[in-house]
């Protein structure tokens, strides 16, 4: 019943080139929704697909379904700025994100699908002495954990990122930066497609256009989900729904420490190679990150829109703010035209760190609250969440990321900003 996609290799690609159009098969086959599964994963984004893939590959769970309201990769896995890095301050976070970064390094081989991991370096910039102190603190924390981090002075930054050489007058000069060389970018759509293809090859049913509308429970235990295609029995249920995490909490009657905010990104017309790494600058009134895609477009993003929204329509003033910040850093790009801009819905927690935990029922799991870290954490999240679901015990990497930490006071407040996702 499962249609095996051909294993990709130099030989198979060559053969495909001369075999005509029939050689290429859909990456994941359109299967029918069954009546019952061992595990139902809600949401076919990066986290849902990776969780299903690891459940099937590492834990031998036979019957796994991924139910998706729209299309594979419609949500944030296709809407981010493709950046991967592990330059976090808190140990609970940087060990987890480092695990993710190590998995990114070998993911193309693991999935037999080219996700185009590009370790071009992630450079956090400082335009003041105070910002240098903050970067040094974060860099030291990373190095103590064995994660690569290099603190650079102005000359070091100018040598590494030649595009920063002033092409006009820069209002604030660069003081230094913190470089994580192994950080970089990954082709985001390929991650969704690669995980979907690999999971499908392991027998996972990926069902699109299937909205989960409710949870079915009997005597305090979840027994399945209601969907737009009818009821489905499930031994365990995993919610990995990104921006709709808060709505899932409302559906289950559990108010969550989560707000949904829009985060915008944009890409310009393609130009010749200019920006060699990922440039990030966080300033007191927002932030900006800039990179150049393999196609040549300059990709930019910034801070959240700042109020709850599910519209996926960004707010104009934030777009202006990001562009102004980007042009202040790189005056050369001032004349470029923006081709597209879009927004994703971010599930922001009250301490800025994610949640992987049981929610209300022993056999219902929540994988959410990813804030800005959703895309870069996909491989580690999938592995850890699958282990939690399959064994019933949270692996060490996510042991601190419980839902109860907010009540017990064991917050993972990376930013030190208090119980508000947005406070500038």
């Amino acid at each position, binding site marked *: 019943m499962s249609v095996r996609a051909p294993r990709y290799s130099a030989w198979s690609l060559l053969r495909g080139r001369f075999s005509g159009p029939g050689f290429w098969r859909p990456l994941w086959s359109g299967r029918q929704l069954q009546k019952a599964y061992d595990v139902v994963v809600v949401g076919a984004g990066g986290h849902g697909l990776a969780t299903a893939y690891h459940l099937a590959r590492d834990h031998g769970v036979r019957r796994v379904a991924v139910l998706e309201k729209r299309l594979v990769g419609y949500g944030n896995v296709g809407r981010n700025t493709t950046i991967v890095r592990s330059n976090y301050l808190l140990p609970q976070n940087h060990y987890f994100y480092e695990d993710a970064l190590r998995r990114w390094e070998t993911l193309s081989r693991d999935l037999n699908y080219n996700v185009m991991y590009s370790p071009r370096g992630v450079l956090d910039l400082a335009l003041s002495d105070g910002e240098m102190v903050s970067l040094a603190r974060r860099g030291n924390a990373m190095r103590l954990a064995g994660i690569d981090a290099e603190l650079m002075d102005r000359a070091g930054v100018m040598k590494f990122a030649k595009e920063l050489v002033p092409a006009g007058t820069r209002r604030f000069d660069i003081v230094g930066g913190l470089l994580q060389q192994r950080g970089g970018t990954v082709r985001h759509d390929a991650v969704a497609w690669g995980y979907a293809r690999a999971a499908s090859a392991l027998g996972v049913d990926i069902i699109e256009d299937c909205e989960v509308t409710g949870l079915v429970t009997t005597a305090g235990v979840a027994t399945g989900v209601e969907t737009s295609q009818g009821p489905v029995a499930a031994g365990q249920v995993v919610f990995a729904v990104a921006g*709709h*995490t*808060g*709505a899932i*909490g*409302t559906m289950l009657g559990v*108010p*969550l*420490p*989560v*707000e*949904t905010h829009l985060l915008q990104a944009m890409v310009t017309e393609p130009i010749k190679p200019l920006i060699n790494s990922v440039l990030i600058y966080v300033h007191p009134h927002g932030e900006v990150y800039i990179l150049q895609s393999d196609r040549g477009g300059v990709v930019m993003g910034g801070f959240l829109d*700042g*109020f*709850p*929204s*599910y*519209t996926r*329509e960004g*707010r*104009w*003033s934030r777009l202006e703010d990001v562009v102004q910040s980007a042009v202040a850093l790189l005056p050369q790009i001032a004349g470029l035209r923006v081709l597209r801009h879009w927004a994703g819905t971010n599930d922001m927690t*009250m301490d800025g760190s994610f949640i992987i935990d049981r929610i209300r029922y022993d056999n219902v799991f929540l994988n959410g609250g990813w804030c800005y870290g959703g895309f870069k954490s996909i491989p580690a999240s999938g592995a850890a969440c699958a282990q939690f679901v399959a064994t019933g015990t949270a692996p060490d990497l996510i042991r601190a990321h419980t839902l109860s930490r*907010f*009540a017990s006071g064991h917050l993972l407040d990376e930013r030190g900003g208090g*119980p*508000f996702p*947005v406070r500038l």
Partner: protein
Amino acid sequence: MMRLTCPFCGARELHEFQFHKTAPEPGANPFAAVYERVNRTDISQEYWQHLHGCRAWLYVSRNPSTGEVYQVHLLGTQS
């Protein structure tokens, strides 16, 4: 949603306002009032401040799925 109508200043651009949080359910305990949020996709009742204007605290109800603003009141005067 591009503008909010401040009861004192009239319709003003959104960037003059700062969102604070969703209004807690009546009778919410202190933990819930600080950390938990009301996440409804059809209506959201929120505290805002006209921070870069008259600095009044506002009570806004709107639809977070469409962006439609239903009502803006001075905080404490909402029905």
